[in-house]
């Protein structure tokens, strides 16, 4: 028959007999037959499929991680072997949403621990068990803010990841939620005066990146101080940076979201990563997504279940806080295993090494006469003026095995010949010196 379909002809005959029909055709009551065949090849054995995909895979260039200086939301970090081995356990991979909690304690406890770790990193009170990515996490955070205070104007820093901004617009428009952009200063930080001018009675939330898309560390404290009490403060963060940056929860954030790919997930051409989503307990009933909580079984033994499900689509339908059902739970597991392996010290070291590498690169570029666009404090990414025809130069570098700082001019015309450089702990002094030869 087929290696994934176990039926023998004999069994098929017995089954048809039990059902009381002569052929499978008889089961298709009033289902029109509109196709004889698909315009597809016939199936193949696994070795042929593997060969075909190996050849496709070879048409993609894999850069040595130390020669990669591109970030913009997707980062190359060292991933301990235990992450891949443990997350590939098929009892995780081939399970579904933990609808039957008693036989899903592995999933539930791992997600509960993940939530705890995200709360620790952000200093927030509640985390959900994942969203699709950073962009949709932000979009849903805005919808949540509007649910909390019933207002419909979002003020968002122009320095946010542009794809996050665009995604938020897509989500907000049908809800008649308006998005206004706030300027940046010459430091690359949010222009607090522009913010003050634009805040009004209809302002629902203020959104900033921490660090922002340009790598700049926003002063959350001073931004928070300008906000009226009922305006929701949404911070889009990068989890690795939070081991050296003060936690947003300590600086007045109401919702902290972001992309968690950096925590042990391979880049995967951009997906799947994971959206993390944290908030304060007082807002939890307005929160989207699945939440895992601790409880007891009938004998008093500790266990875990999905909680506050009355927020969710399968119960509340059109009135749910979100339509999200399948999430990125397996990626949350990867995040948790990675954070367990790194521990607080390892994670801090990753952050500091990334900080050092990017500051070394920035210093050397400046020595060569290149100018950084902003002079504000940055974490592991920064913008610099890369000179005429940088795009062509960048492509040339890729032929020499270097994925150089990303040229922004194509998608952001006002940043013509500006590049976004990124370093992490995988970049060595030698690889950076080698990159510098191209400048």
């Amino acid at each position, binding site marked *: 028959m087929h290696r994934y379909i176990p039926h023998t002809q004999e069994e098929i005959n017995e089954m048809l007999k039990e059902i009381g029909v002569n052929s499978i055709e008889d089961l298709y009551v009033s289902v029109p037959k509109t196709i004889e065949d698909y315009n597809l090849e016939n199936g193949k054995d696994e070795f042929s499929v593997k060969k075909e995909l190996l050849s496709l895979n070879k*048409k993609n*260039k894999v850069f040595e991680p130390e020669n990669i200086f591109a970030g913009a939301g997707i980062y190359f970090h060292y991933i301990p072997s235990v992450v891949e081995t443990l997350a590939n356990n098929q009892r995780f*991979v081939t399970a579904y949403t933990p609808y039957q909690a008693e036989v899903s304690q592995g999933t539930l406890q791992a997600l509960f621990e993940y939530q705890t770790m995200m709360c620790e990193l952000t200093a927030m009170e509640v985390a959900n068990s994942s969203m699709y990515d950073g962009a949709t996490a932000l979009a849903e955070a805005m919808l949540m803010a509007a649910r909390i205070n019933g207002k419909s104007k979002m003020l968002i820093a122009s320095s946010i990841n542009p794809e996050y901004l665009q995604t938020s617009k897509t989500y907000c428009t049908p809800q008649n939620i308006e998005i206004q952009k706030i300027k940046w200063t010459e430091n690359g930080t949010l222009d607090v005066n522009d913010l003050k001018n634009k805040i009004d009675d209809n302002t629902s939330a203020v959104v900033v990146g921490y660090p922002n898309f340009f790598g700049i*560390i926003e002063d959350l404290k001073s931004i928070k101080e300008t906000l009226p009490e009922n305006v929701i403060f949404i911070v889009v963060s990068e989890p690795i940076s939070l081991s050296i*940056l003060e936690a947003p929860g300590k600086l007045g954030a109401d919702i902290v979201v972001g992309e968690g790919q950096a925590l042990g997930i391979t880049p995967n051409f951009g997906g799947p990563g994971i959206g993390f989503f944290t908030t304060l307990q007082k807002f939890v009933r307005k929160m989207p997504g699945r939440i895992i*909580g601790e409880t007891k079984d009938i004998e008093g033994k500790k266990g875990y279940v999905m909680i506050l499900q009355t927020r969710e689509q399968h119960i509340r*339908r059109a009135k749910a806080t979100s339509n999200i059902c399948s*999430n990125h739970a397996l990626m949350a597991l990867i995040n948790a295993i990675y954070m*367990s392996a790194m521990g*607080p010290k390892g994670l801090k070291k990753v952050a500091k090494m990334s900080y050092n590498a990017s500051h070394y690169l920035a210093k050397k570029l400046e020595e060569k006469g290149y100018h950084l666009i902003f002079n504000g404090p940055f974490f592991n990414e920064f913008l610099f003026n890369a000179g005429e025809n940088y795009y062509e130069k960048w492509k040339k570098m890729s032929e020499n095995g270097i994925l150089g700082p990303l040229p922004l001019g194509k998608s952001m015309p006002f940043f013509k010949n500006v590049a976004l450089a990124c370093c992490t702990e995988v970049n060595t002094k030698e690889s950076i010196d080698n990159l510098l030869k191209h400048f």
Partner: protein
Amino acid sequence: MTIFEISKPNRIGFELPENNIEDFELNIPEHLIRKEQPNLPQVSELDIVRHYTNLAAKNYAVDVGFYPLGSCTMKYNPKINEKIANFEGFSMIHPFQPHETTQGALKLMFELKEMLCEITGMEDMTLIPSAGAHGELTGMLIARAYHLSKGDTKRTKAIVPDSAHGTNPASARMAGFEVIEIKSGPDGRVDLEELNKALDENVAVLMLTNPNTLGLFEKDILKISEMVHEKGALLYYDGANLNALLGRTRPGDMGFDIVHLNLHKTFSTPHGMGGPGSGPVGVKKHLAKFLPIPEVIKEDDKYKLNYNKPDSIGFIRSYYGNFSVLVKAYAYIKTMGNDGLKKVGQMAILNANYLRKKVEKIMDIAYPGFCMHEFVSTCEKFTKETGVKALDIAKRLLDYGVHAPTMYFPLIVHEDFMIEPTETESKDSLDKFAEILAKIFDEARENPDFVKNAPYNTPVKRLDDVLASRKPVFKFDFGK
């Protein structure tokens, strides 16, 4: 025990290589420097290995046994697909590498899009949505954009049958529609009169799952399509149950304008404890310009990403979708091919009908007659007689080493199971399930309390959901 309780100060699980770079002092304002380190675990590598291996052992999974969760299509997840998705050329590439260096990935996406168009009978497709519900939102935003592009601003309503998945009304509302729910007819299908009453010039779209969540084919689909289109509305196909139609018919042939798929259902990519999945959206030609940004295109044998789509609904997430899930679905379609995919639909239907025949002897079938890939059974009468609920039966099933079916859904049936065996289960495993189910009903008759307190053989006994939501504990308490 949680990983936080295993943790010991200064224990480490990983070491980093040196990068020979000087140490820079933090040039960050003092109040933005972290003072207190997060309470992350401090554990050895073996601690981590044992912790997560022991957690995994507490999970039920497709690889462990029968998982007949209705509308979730818990079919076998081929191992070769996992291996391929982990090839470095797929997993270790950055989304913003030059196009010239990702031709393999773009080609894979382009071809997957074409293959899925062929399988669904649609004319264009986006692979970006991350899950079924994300696909629904995308599809509904396309419906919205379509009507608005014609200057038609009064189409504010979306019709959804009462048997629909909860995501349908939730997605419709997120796309800005008012949701009109219509009652199913006595045969469990769309009631044409109800539909006719609800259809007016303010309706933008009808969302349908076909076969529906009762496992029944909407036999009047061509008539429904005609009615919907006559009123200027669009017809949306929820692809949760596409498995049943493989090799027989295609949503595009039935008149659907927009289709979302669940690659983690029909196309065998694993469910991963709840995700990541992937929810591509296919459309007919007249809607192609509204598909989200970016699209993969082919020009002179080169593959590119096109961001220049002025009529598009815009970005629906970052980058290009859940690429590694796409790789797995691509490998699956290559493996099954035309001949294999045709068998999938047939065997899924054979299995469901065979199991229905077996279960019929134990429980009532909600809507008698042949079913498609799944069916709904109910023990409402039995519950009234014995006090034993479908929930109790479900919990007792866990004791016998099978996963319970979907329960209490669709909402129009009570004390019910929605059972979907999928094509990858053998006759033996279906026979065994029916045997176990019969045994449990016997137990419930003899000793209702025994079944009401199930399960007994699971890592924990029945858990208190009510307490969990009344006094929620969201995270581990470090005792601070």
